[in-house]
């Protein structure tokens, strides 16, 4: 639910409560004022009645419209005016209506009379009726206004906010531009934008530093390695070198090469994690797999492996072409490396995904952990255990799902193209 709708709804709910309480207060104030007016009116009538009694000096009970005068047989004391409510038949409405009644004992021309008067100016249900009606009308007016305000706020007040949201959505680290602060004139939005500018500038700097670091790390590491490897290779050409010694040199070369490969693999992983391969475009996956299989054909033949291809032509996926090649090459070289002589490799590409199966010894590690870094299968001689983590990472950034299991003497890797 949009914030502005939430806000409007809350506002209307709370004002409904306020209106209910307000109605009660209004009703009571009106009622109090009306009964005061009523009492004042009755007191005026009392003066009029006293004058009438003075004129007529009745001996029996005198009943007129809404007036009753009863002469008292013996002398008594005058009383204070007292008011009470009574229900009397309304003359014009012809139904019982609550009236205000005034009672008093007065001495007029030496005689005592009990005088009672009653009347009604405004009926009680008329008050309730009018309070209810005016409150409902005002409430409807308020609702209309608030809704209108909501639409207006959504359109104009939240415009800078929506603009900021768009900027965040389109923010791309690779473009190297932090979000520039925009002045909105609204304190909250200005603070948000300022915070965003600071944050994206920081993220951008960190990202650039990391990118530079991984490139420098690679350079600073590979150059001395190239130097060491070169020196050892020159040493190998020394005719005085004994076989035993050259074996040691070879051992050193092997280790150096492993370090170099590991550095390259880690560098690649970092780059994938940094999303430096963001060149996503439609790609003919079938062609990529076919090309890779052709490249590997000789190595497959040399190990006497049977290759089964089931490739639906022109299966299109959206991913970075470099990542696609790295992924396919890693999977294929894995399938060859962890295979056995006269083994089988089965490949399948269709609209739903890419499956590669190969015969081989069961994995020594738990299937789930094979995608972790440095979790290497003991059957493989070399490899840094990074190949599958790279494949996993590529699937992650390309939005694919990857699954591995081992059954019936076969390793089975399945990549599902989630579209």
């Amino acid at each position, binding site marked *: 639910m949009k914030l502005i709708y939430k806000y409007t709804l809350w506002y209307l709910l709370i004002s409904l409560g306020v209106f209910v309480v307000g109605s009660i207060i209004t009703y009571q104030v009106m009622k109090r004022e009306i009964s005061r007016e009523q009492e004042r009116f009755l007191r005026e009538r009392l003066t009029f009645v006293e004058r009438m009694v003075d004129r007529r000096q009745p001996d029996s009970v005198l009943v007129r419209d809404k007036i009753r005068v009863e002469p008292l047989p013996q002398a008594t004391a005058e009383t204070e005016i007292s008011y009470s409510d009574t229900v009397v038949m309304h003359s014009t409405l012809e139904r019982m209506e609550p009236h205000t009644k005034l009672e008093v004992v007065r001495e007029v021309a030496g005689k005592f009379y009990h005088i009672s008067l009653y009347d009604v100016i405004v009926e009680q249900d008329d008050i309730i009726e009018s309070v209810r009606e005016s409150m409902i009308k005002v409430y409807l007016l308020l609702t209309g206004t608030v809704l209108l305000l909501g639409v207006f706020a959504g359109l104009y007040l939240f415009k800078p906010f929506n603009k900021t949201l768009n900027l965040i959505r389109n923010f791309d680290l690779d473009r190297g531009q932090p979000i520039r602060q925009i002045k909105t004139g609204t304190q909250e939005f200005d603070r948000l934008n300022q915070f965003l500018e600071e944050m994206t500038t920081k993220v951008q700097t960190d990202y650039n530093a990391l990118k530079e670091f991984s490139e420098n790390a690679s350079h600073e590491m590979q150059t001395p390695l190239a130097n060491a490897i070169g020196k050892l290779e020159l040493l*190998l050409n020394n005719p005085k070198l004994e076989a035993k010694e050259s074996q040691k040199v070879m051992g050193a*070369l092997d280790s150096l090469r492993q370090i170099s490969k590991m550095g390259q693999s880690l560098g690649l992983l970092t780059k994938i994690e940094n999303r430096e391969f963001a060149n996503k475009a439609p790609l003919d996956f079938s062609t990529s797999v076919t090309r890779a299989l052709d490249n590997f054909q000789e190595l497959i033949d040399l190990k006497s492996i049977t290759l089964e291809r089931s490739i639906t032509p022109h299966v299109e996926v959206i991913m970075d072409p470099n990542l696609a090649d790295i992924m396919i090459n890693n999977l294929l070289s894995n399938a060859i490396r962890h295979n056995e002589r006269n083994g089988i490799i089965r490949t399948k590409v269709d609209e739903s995904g890419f499956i590669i199966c190969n015969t081989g010894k069961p994995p020594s590690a738990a299937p789930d952990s094979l995608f972790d870094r440095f979790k290497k299968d003991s059957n493989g001689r070399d490899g840094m255990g990074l190949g599958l983590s790279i494949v996993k990472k590529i699937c992650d950034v390309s939005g694919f799902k990857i699954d591995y299991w081992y059954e019936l003497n076969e390793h089975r890797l399945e990549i599902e193209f989630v579209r």
Partner: protein
Amino acid sequence: MKILVVEDHEELAQNVHAYLEQEGYVCEVAENYHSALNKLGGFEYDAVILDLMLPDGNGLDILKWLKSNQSDMGVLILSAKNALNDKVEGLELGADDYLSKPFHFTELNARLKAIYRRRKLKGHDIIQCSNISINSETMEVKVGENLLELTRKEFELLLYFIINKNRVLTKQSIAEHLWGDYIDSLDSFDFVYQHIKNLRKKLMQAGSDDPIQTMYGSGYKFMVSE
């Protein structure tokens, strides 16, 4: 063949220098961007080996400068950044080849020779090595007068051996030369062994002595008596 090595790592530059001199190249070293531009402006070279990360500039700018001066110099990029963009950009700018660090000297030699053949000889050359002659364009190999039927990989292997004759070639470097990046993590040595076995057999059937010497523990050497 005259080569300029642009490399800021002093030791590595000296190594390459020493190796290339041994191989009969005339070689000079420039250790930074500015001295490289000075040397390229003042002297003629057949090829330049270019490191991309220099303390005072980017190797790609040197490449751009060379191309804008219509230089016919061969360019081999040598970089540790291993950044795919650099490779693509370098080749698009007109570099002949790209080699990432670390590399085998024998591979560097083979690449330089290939650049030389392509640029200076336009591919028309016969490489003669004792009684073996190789036409690198038609892929024709003769031992004496006998034509040799080789597969593509066997041909590449023989060429690699002959270019690096009398040098130890490690199995690793042979595997990387033949299969490039694909060999990465495969147990390549069996494959190398099989190819060498086949090549040996074919050479001997054509009447050559066995020129490929197995260096116990380290690799192979193509022996040619000078």
